[in-house]
């Protein structure tokens, strides 16, 4: 381990961003983790003070700071609400990378990020292998939600009700594609994303159906992988950058006008983090791609003019919408998924309390801090159930996983769908 002065040197790059925090503490009002624990180290102000403490040599415990930084959903609620405009999310991601560089990655993370995630084809093979075994080890538990649980209690599952891996991932159903648009239609590239590819392929298929129906040309390059956010939040900047470069090569900008994803987290990562955390010519290419990147519902509503009939959304089967943090707080997209559901017809939109409160998933947070994640998720579940809905719709597969787990554990018969699935189902065959 290098000496602390080296670490301070690395953190100095964050100083201008850190001084923006005036310690007003308003982030306490919105932080889901702090809401559960009441601990200052769990809220953005505390974490920023810790980084500042390392920088100012008030504290000599980088391991302790890292452990506390990891108790964060990276939901961005704090940044969205911050009076001073502190870029908390950006600071935390950079700090995680600096600390991982200084302290080293854990062997498990290193293996997962560098051997699997960094190599899309290897990851695909590993997951295909796991999908076979899952049938032996898991059994269905809630038909409406579509969840399974372990056949025998396993500590790694911690009683989770999970959405199983798809028997056939999207990249097998549609290895690649390049169809021309109908006259005047846009050329749209689809970035699939791991969770949609491997767990929710029906979402990507619904997107293709809608795009075809609307006359868009569709470009799906083969060999797609992860957007890199798991590696980045784990502090592995190298794997993140490798994945960015990989996809920039796959998505040749000459072949599409707009890039869409059905995953709020992928969209936010492509749009904001790819340009912000890469350097040199890669950053410039990432910026150009970011400008073309949109959430699927945003694209359908804003660019293609998909809209509900007047009065739509008032009568029909009851649906409620959960706003993913990466869609509403990061990108300001929240009207569009609702419009898409109105356009689908046959649905009564009923808002839940706090529709934009985080579901508690936070990617690897759910793995490392399941009890906390579950406590936050249970609040979400109660608010969903209180609407009396048949379906909860949300534009992020990670939220879909967490919400499915929570509904299923509570024994609710509420289906979890992506808004584009609801819209696709309304189209004529």
């Amino acid at each position, binding site marked *: 381990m290098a000496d602390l002065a080296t670490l301070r040197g690395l953190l100095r790059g964050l100083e201008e961003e850190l001084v923006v925090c005036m310690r007003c503490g308003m982030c306490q009002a919105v932080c889901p983790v702090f809401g559960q624990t009441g601990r200052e180290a769990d809220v953005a102000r505390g974490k920023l003070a810790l980084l500042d403490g390392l920088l100012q040599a008030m504290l000599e415990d980088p391991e302790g700071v890292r452990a*506390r930084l990891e108790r964060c959903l990276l939901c961005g609620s704090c940044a969205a609400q911050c009076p*001073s405009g502190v870029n908390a999310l950006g600071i935390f991601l950079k700090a995680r990378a600096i600390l991982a560089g200084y302290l080293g990655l854990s062997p498990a993370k290193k293996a997962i990020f560098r051997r699997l995630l960094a190599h899309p084809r290897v990851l695909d093979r590993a997951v295909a292998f796991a999908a076979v075994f899952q049938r032996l080890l898991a059994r269905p538990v809630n038909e409406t939600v579509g969840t399974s649980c372990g056949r025998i209690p396993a500590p790694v599952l911690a009683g989770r009700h999970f959405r199983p891996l798809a028997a056939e991932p999207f990249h097998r159903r549609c290895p690649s594609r390049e169809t021309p648009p109908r006259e005047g239609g846009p050329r749209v590239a689809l970035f699939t994303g791991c969770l949609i590819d491997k767990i929710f392929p029906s979402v990507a298929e619904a997107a293709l159906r809608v795009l075809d129906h609307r006359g868009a040309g569709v470009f799906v390059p083969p060999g797609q992988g992860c957007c890199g956010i798991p590696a980045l939040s784990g502090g592995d900047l190298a794997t993140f950058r490798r994945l960015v470069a990989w996809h920039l090569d796959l998505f040749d900008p000459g072949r599409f006008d707009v890039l869409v994803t059905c995953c709020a987290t992928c969209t936010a990562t492509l749009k904001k983090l790819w340009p912000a955390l890469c350097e040199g010519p890669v950053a410039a290419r990432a910026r150009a791609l970011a400008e073309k990147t949109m959430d699927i519902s945003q694209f359908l509503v804003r660019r293609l003019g998909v809209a509900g009939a007047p009065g739509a959304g008032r009568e029909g089967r009851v649906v409620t919408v959960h706003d993913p943090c990466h869609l509403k707080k990061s990108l300001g997209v929240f009207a569009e998924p609702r419009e898409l559901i109105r356009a689908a017809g046959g649905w009564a939109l009923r808002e839940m309390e706090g529709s934009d409160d985080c579901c508690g998933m936070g990617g690897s947070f759910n793995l490392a801090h399941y009890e906390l994640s579950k406590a936050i998720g249970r609040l979400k579940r109660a608010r969903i159930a209180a609407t009396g809905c048949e379906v909860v719709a949300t534009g992020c597969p990670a939220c879909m996983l967490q919400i499915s787990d929570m509904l299923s554990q509570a024994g609710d018969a509420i289906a979890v769908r992506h808004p584009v699935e609801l819209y696709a189902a309304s189209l004529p065959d």
Partner: protein
Amino acid sequence: MIRGALIREFEAVFGKDAVFAAEADRLTYAYDAAPLEQVMPGLVVRPTSGEALAAAVRLCGENGIPLTVRGAGTNLSGGTVPLPGGVVVVTNGLNRILELNEEDLYAVVEPGVVTAKFAAAVQARGLFYPPDPGSQAVSTLGGNVAENAGGLRGLKYGVTRDYVMGLEFFDARGETIKTGSRTVKCATGYNLAGLLVGSEGTLGVFHRITLKLIPLPAAQQAMMAVFDRPEAASETVAAIIAARIVPATLEFMDQFTIRAVEEYSRAGLPVEAAALLLIEVDGHPAQVAEDASRVEELCRRHGAASLRVARGAAERNKVWEARRSALSALAKLKPTLVLEDATVPRSRIPDMVRAIDEIAREFRLAIGTFGHAGDGNLHPTILTDKRDREEWARVERAIAAIFDRALALGGTLSGEHGTGIAKACFLDRETTAATILYSQRIKKALDPGNILNPGKIIPAPA
């Protein structure tokens, strides 16, 4: 340093999850929202029951360790900055509303209840708890009482002090002290609640607070008046008060702040305006209509260049959105923000606005001024970068100058942020040497071991 044996004793009382001894946890309780030096506490505890809270006080007393109570840590005068090696007692785990009595119009709460959540729970029953400090979304009622927090409605509805009917608190030995009652009238014993409100944790630790509630006003009307001279705005404030109208809120914003808000939120504010008044009257619909038209007329008569009356909830919200974003808008301009709250008798607002302007020029500082003009409580907000030592020295001199000018106008050092550490050394400018001695004697009699948040409010005896 706090001994390991003592830490284990705390752990035995509170459980391991509620005692934070690690350096990386303690550092996150070394500050509050005041731009002061951080001070590392020796231990942090987070009790979740009244018994544990009393035990924390007792353990600190027995071991002679200074104790600082902390709610949300949003204090602007350093009242929640701990003593070196002291214990921080976090009250946000004591967050139950114990009773909300609609017949007798009071509520009993634990100190860690968040102000805005309480106000919402009260409003859901058609009742009203008016104190609304700027940090209400996170601040705790215990903290509000300890600081005698104010807000935007002070002019008509008063401040936290006016709503405290009774208290149960622990003295320096952890014994329960009761004062006040659930009754409207109470002439029993000393008015200890009066002493404890605003005592910043130096005289006792709150366990239960009884708060007065009032009926929710049936109607309100908001408006925004635009002025091309700051004097015209401040004269209008004086004229409204003189006309025996008491608006619920009467807020002032200077040009610097208007421009910052507009730059930040594009709310459509008139950037050429020299000053704005944001006014809201509330009460019975008939009275609201009459007051609103009289205020309108007074604004015009005193030279309002234009007047916008909010039609409907959306427009009303827009008016207040502009005010609410004032601090955010200013905060985005510079890293360090010094939010002062020196207060003057409201008729002297025009003089104070002028004085702040002169001070900004004299010390070459950017100062945005906004605030509660209706109750004389302006917030001159100095924008700076604490790392710039030369400028910071000028900031410190400007703060002293603001205090002196406010005192010369018959005002006070702090309207609502408290004395804390930041203003303790200025206390002799407003009071007398005997006043400080008197306060020191009270402190010494009630807390002979000097463990309850020592060094706050009153300067240490020489």
